[in-house]
């Protein structure tokens, strides 16, 4: 019964529907990669044109805060993977709990990020807020611009991810999301989460470790 209920209109069977959802998510993630790809291209151009200044600019960032945040995100991805495992096994509470933990780590990441921004603001490194900047070269200024846009866009993605995981966590725990039949929902949301995570894994070296 549950099986038929979870097959929607254009599909012949549950498997076809699941495959379609997976592919849809992969295609979407492909377009996300191109979105950040534009920023990576900007970073590459900057690095090629002004190698020495970019290295200098990178040294001004708080590399350890970035490192901690990297660890936080990677751990959250682990939790998401565990949640997916629970979902496939039909364990509702486990799914909800792991998703909730992952979302919480996402929130921790954002909190740390805000703290880091405030430090940089105090140091006169963060553009865009009207405060006088203490950058030494135009390239450092451009680098910080890029830093702000890239990490800001990433934070926005993370925020969306957190909301997504919370909604699914609640629906899974309360039983409104049929598990394991609809395990595809946490699976695809998890894919999104992993991608946001992976993007950070690239942003971190490009921005912080260029020193």
């Amino acid at each position, binding site marked *: 019964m549950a099986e038929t209920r979870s097959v929607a209109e254009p599909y012949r069977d549950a498997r076809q529907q699941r495959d379609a959802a997976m592919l*849809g998510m992969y295609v979407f993630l492909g*377009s996300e990669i191109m979105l950040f790809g534009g920023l990576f291209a900007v970073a590459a151009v900057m690095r090629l044109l002004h190698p020495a200044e970019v290295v200098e600019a990178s040294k001004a960032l708080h590399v350890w805060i970035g490192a901690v945040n990297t660890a936080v995100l990677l751990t959250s991805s682990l939790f998401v993977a565990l949640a997916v495992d629970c979902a496939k096994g039909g364990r509702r509470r486990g799914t909800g709990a792991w998703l909730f933990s992952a979302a919480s780590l996402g929130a921790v990441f954002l909190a740390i990020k805000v703290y880091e921004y405030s430090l940089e603001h105090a140091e006169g490194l963060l553009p865009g807020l009207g405060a006088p900047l203490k950058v030494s070269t135009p390239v450092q200024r*451009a680098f910080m611009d890029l830093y702000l846009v890239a990490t800001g866009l990433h934070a926005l993605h993370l925020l969306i991810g957190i909301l997504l995981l919370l909604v699914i966590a609640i629906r899974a725990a309360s039983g409104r999301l049929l598990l394991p039949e609809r395990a595809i929902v946490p699976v695809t949301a998890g894919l999104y989460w992993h991608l946001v995570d992976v993007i950070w894994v690239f942003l971190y070296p490009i921005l912080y470790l260029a020193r």
Partner: protein
Amino acid sequence: MTALQERPEQADRHDRGLSETDTERQSYLRAGHSLGSWFFTRDHKRIAILYLFAITAFFMIGGAAAALMRLDLLTSAGDLLTNEGYNRAFTIHGVIMVWFFLIPSIPNTFGNFLVPLMIGARDLAFPRLNLLSWYIFVLAGGFTLFVLIAGGVDTGWTFYTPLSSMFSHGNVVLAAVAVFIAGFSSILTGLNFIVTVHKLRCPGMTWDRLPLFVWAIYATSLILVLATPVLSITLVLIAAERLFGLGIFDPKLGGDPLLYQHLFWFYSHPAVYIMVLPALGVVSELVAAAARKPVFGYKFVAGSSIAIAVIGFFVWGHHMFVAGQSMYASAVFSFLSLAVAVPSGIKVYNWAATLYKGHISLDPPFLYGMTFIGLFVVGGLTGLMLAMLAVDVHVHDTYFVVAHFHYIMVGGTVSAFFGALHYWWPKIVGRTYPLVWGRLAAIFIFLGFNLTFFPQFLLGYLGMPRRYHVYAPEFQMLHVLSSAGASLLGLAYLMPLVYLTWSMRYGAPAGDNPWDATGLEWTTPSPPPKHNFDEIPVVDRPPYDYEIEMEGEDG
């Protein structure tokens, strides 16, 4: 045969009941009459109709801006519009025509309507996403119109920095936001098509049996999904610069204005293929149906769509030959631009070979198809000229470029759009239109188009720069010719609106397959029922499986 029996009572034109055929009563058009049944529909066919209305409206708005420009250009002084006003007019024209007419035109109307029918599916993979994408599109379009008319933007559709980021007085940020939002609609639509083609093909519909239109839509979708986000991020960077002074493109702040052009054209050259690939797909269908022969070199025609999509990503630098990019980069981009013309050439040759010795019918769809082929060849060949470094230095930013891309985007894509409209109209509404009028409109469009845009090649070659409305008096003659042609073209574009609308009520019922064509869409009733197929079809033969009767053999 059935078509004749079901023919409505022609004399009694006020009786709705009588003028409705049985198939029509069971069709998607009659499945629900309330507004809600249209605006909350998930039926791909109804969503296609919603798109058809939306893009027709945008086509008219963009056309009105063009009419204003052509009127102003009648004289060499700028006496109709102010300088600012002229800049705003061509910005409205470009932005609306590119993002709100051409990009969604064929994919979102005919792609939506036909892809599921052609591959034997009941709907697209994600029907709700499809509807959402329409709402995003309409929202973005309405917002754009408001921004462009109320505030005005004077940067042109290209939003070049530093004009857009530092000097322009208009609402660049809002316009960028609007185009950014429209991008989501493009991405969602592309995603939907990709998944549909991969996962919802009916049994037996293997990749080498896909209709060429579906191949083209698939290739287009790849570009939509991979190129649009690059435009999105570029627009974000422009907005960030104007709002917060984040100067990625501002040399004073360590940025690089040329970087903008790279990012923009990395999207926008592939975007020109978003605009033309679906048209190429349509024409493949029209040619096969008109020649009544299997398409010559099916695999090459299908593969060339993919080749165009891929190579199209690597030629953007041909827009920057005189913008100060490295000479070596220019040489490479020039070479790659010549290479991208090869797959387009393959298509044209294969169409010609398909037509060779075919029983060619000169019905309206094929007249539009031929219009497309002729004008596309001219547009493509002049593209090759532009891709030659030395020639481009001479004609860059002149009317030559304007003529080049209008030959492809208007002469090509818009003609193919009308071709598709005339070919599948009987399927969409279930009625046929008067063929004579269809032929006349096609001929007028061809003549009007050439009269409008051929003089622009000459103008450009003689040195008339684009985007100026005050010009040297010796150019006036050619401008007047062009404006005269534009009036003819404008009228010709309105003709189908009249007789196609007329046909919805007074046309004769079309029957399932009025053109006697192959393809699963013609196996359904016209108009198709809500769920397309009562039973999912099974395909057991190659595409375009026409019985060949050579011209030479029967006579």
